[in-house]
């Protein structure tokens, strides 16, 4: 009896929550689609000059195999040291200002660059990509699956 009553009450509370949630989301200016498109970590942001995204690990892997592209790791130094895409250089986003000077000296502005961080949920690769574009690099792309995607597909790491 108690169980049945509790179940009924739970259904009422859950029902009110769901109706309220969908309703508020529908009318809220910050509402999101009920079924999301999970293909990018960058919500909004500047539309112009946005570096292109590499949307699959396979594509990133091809670019990696072709060589000539510099992978730039946006994660912390510690994460970089624990493992990174072979040949990648570390440029943690929070040390961007300190390190961009020497980075500019080492790599010419036409150097093709691919930035990455730990995966689709982190924005650091997007921000780093934007900063590098603003710093003058002309060929910057973002590998959105990041290190976790790279590793999960069994690609080499170092």
């Amino acid at each position, binding site marked *: 009896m108690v169980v049945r009553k509790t179940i009924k009450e739970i259904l009422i509370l859950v029902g009110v929550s769901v109706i309220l949630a969908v309703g508020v989301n529908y009318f809220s200016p910050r509402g*999101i689609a*009920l079924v999301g498109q999970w293909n990018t*970590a960058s919500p909004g942001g500047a539309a112009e000059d946005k570096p292109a995204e590499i949307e699959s690990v396979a594509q990133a892997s091809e670019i990696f195999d072709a060589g000539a592209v510099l992978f730039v790791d946006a994660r912390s130094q510690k*994460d970089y040291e624990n493992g990174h895409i072979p040949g990648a250089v570390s440029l943690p*986003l929070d040390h961007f200002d300190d390190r961009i000077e020497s980075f500019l000296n080492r790599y010419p502005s036409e150097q093709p660059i691919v930035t990455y961080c*730990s995966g689709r949920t*982190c*924005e650091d690769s997007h921000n780093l990509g934007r900063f590098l574009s603003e710093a003058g690099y002309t060929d910057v792309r973002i590998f959105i699956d990041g290190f976790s995607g790279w590793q999960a597909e069994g690609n080499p790491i170092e």
Partner: protein
Amino acid sequence: MCAFLLTAFPAGRQRGIPLSNLRKSILSNSWIELATRWILGLTFIYASFYKIASPDDFAKIVYGYNLFPEIFINLIAIIIPFLEVIAGLALIIGIYPRSAAVIINALLLAFITALAINLIRGHEFDCGCFSAGQSEYPGASWVMLVRDLIFFVLGMQIVLFKGHRRSCFGRLISRHSF
């Protein structure tokens, strides 16, 4: 804390009478029940605030747990904060308090499971995901896990409570006992 644990693990009863008395007195103390309801209720309302204010950010966090099919992520991110706020309000006002506590404990179980799975996986939560330079807090997941376990035990006190609940608004609008 120890006392609350006993309420959650009734096996303690067999070990001796004092434990059983302690458990009984905690489960029938209406002031503890009221305090617990307020603590849990306010915590959940507070916790839902940021999630309701920026559902896109919360959706990304849900996505980051890497546990749910992509088509459900936005729905989860939209509905969970409102479950928290409604259940939290119900606890504070005293409408369906036991059922609200069941909902909150179900949510807590889900959080605990999600955290535990990702801790076991060694999944990178702390990727600087949400702002630059956050990557130096590997202990945060453990803290959250322990915190949720404590909340779960508090929730069990409300669920298992026997007796007259204090300050129940629900009683004013219905003759049935809430």
